[in-house]
């Protein structure tokens, strides 16, 4: 199967690989997928006081399309508000990377990772406010 140039680029030069402090209240962590299914994505966002995503990091276990999808969304979420970030659709990711039908689930997982990270961040803020 031939990979698109964009997938190859993200695979070979992944953006924002790494980890943020998962215990920080400014950081939201999303861990989605399962090792038994062959892909796991960890997406982390650093959110400032204005509610803007300042930084994003990922680590992914999966095929080239999964790595590319998660690498791409770290670029896309940076500078966005939480509302804007969760409105990113898997179809936009799939279209941008020209994913074939069998790889659509990789983009779905990347969308889920954003939602999971944002939800984790919001949960932390609620807990912090309650304290």
């Amino acid at each position, binding site marked *: 199967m*031939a*990979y698109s*140039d964009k997938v*190859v680029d993200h*695979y070979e030069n*992944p953006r924002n*690989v790494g*980890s943020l402090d998962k215990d920080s209240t400014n950081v939201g962590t999303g*861990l*989605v*997928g*399962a*090792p*038994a*299914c*062959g*892909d*796991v*994505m*960890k997406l982390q966002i650093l959110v400032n006081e204005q509610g803007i995503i300042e930084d994003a990091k990922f*680590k*992914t*276990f*999966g*095929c*080239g399309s*999964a*790595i590319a999808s998660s690498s791409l969304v770290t670029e896309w979420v940076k500078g966005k508000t939480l509302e804007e970030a969760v409105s990113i659709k898997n179809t936009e990711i799939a279209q941008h990377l020209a994913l074939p039908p*069998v790889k659509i*689930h990789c983009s*779905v*997982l990347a969308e889920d990772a954003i939602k999971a990270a944002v939800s984790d961040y919001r949960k932390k803020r609620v807990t912090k406010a309650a304290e």
Partner: protein
Amino acid sequence: MDVLDAEAGAKPDPRSVVYLDYQATTPTDPRVIEAMLPYFNERFGNPHSRSHPYGWRAEEAVEKARAEIAAIIGADPKEIVFTSGATESNNLALKGVARFYRDKKNHVITEVTEHKCVLDTCRHLEQEGFEVTYLPVQPNGLVDLDGLKAAIRDTTAIVSVMAANNEIGVLQPIREIGAICRERQVFFHTDAAQAVGKIPLDVNEMNIDLMSISAHKIYGPMGIGALYVRRRPRVRIVPLINGGGQERGMRSGTLATPLVVGFGEACRLAAAEMADEAKRLMALRQRLYEGLMKRVPCIYLNGDLEHRLPGNLNMSFAYVEGEGLMMGIKDLAVSSGSACTSASLEPSYVLRALGVAEELAHTSLRLGLGRFTTEEDIDHAIESIAREVGRLREMSPLWEMAQEGVDLKSIAWAEH
């Protein structure tokens, strides 16, 4: 090569990619091509034409090849039936025997790590009303002989167990299985597509009644194979293809003389070079195995190391998904048991049958060595795999968690 080049764009030139996928196919040996060439034109003829020298000459070439193929498995040339390849041979053996003896017998035994063409044929036989027992395998990939003995019934027509597995290369105890089948008077078929020409085989010593053979796995041409069908005691089969009654009525159709000649030459070369080649390949495989074990932590061998084809290695690289890894080692042509390499989303059924956990099955690579593999190729492969596994583990959340001491099994994963 045209297709590769056309799609390629940024893809590497296939000639710069080290071929380590010899269980998928092998290049046709130049000596085989040379033997075949005259039979396309100057020595052309229908081997079934009995009325003129063109036919006689082609027939002579076909019979010479048949003798070479028979010799490599200790058979009589009359027991060799040419087919289009091992898939057809497996279909012919199983459907042919089951259908011929169906009045008295309705049971077939096979095992779970067989090639898809055996398993799919068995599924069709089930639809025709036959009962099929699929024997499990042990964690090393081998069939349990007591389990086989217990599975044989009075109504069992045939037992089909492969000689060597295509994914993990393990060698089944076919000599012991042959003895059991002979004692219980059940026909024994073995799919030897991966084994012929790689390990010594003898249909009489091993009590094999039917054997499937493929030419393109042994440096012969694609599109030709054979089914060995024992004459004494006689095995009878219902043909799949009807027509002019060629191949003693078991497989009609004009024989492809150039392919048959190439197949024969491939067997002759394999028989002559098998012992030396096996020794060389085992040394190369050991170099690869030890090199990887030394360079890369947390990797696991799949399948028995001792009972194994000389040219096969199958390893799981924990925390790195197989397809993702193959994309990184683009200077190596290998295959993976990862789900992502097939249309289904399930990882290798062979590895799962061994009890390899799904998450590890997703991280497996099959490395196939063969006649044209060099020490340089092996060193290059070790380097390339070690580098990419290291890079991808730095990118793997599972590796990170494992390093932090998190038990991956303790996490409630959302399986999708």
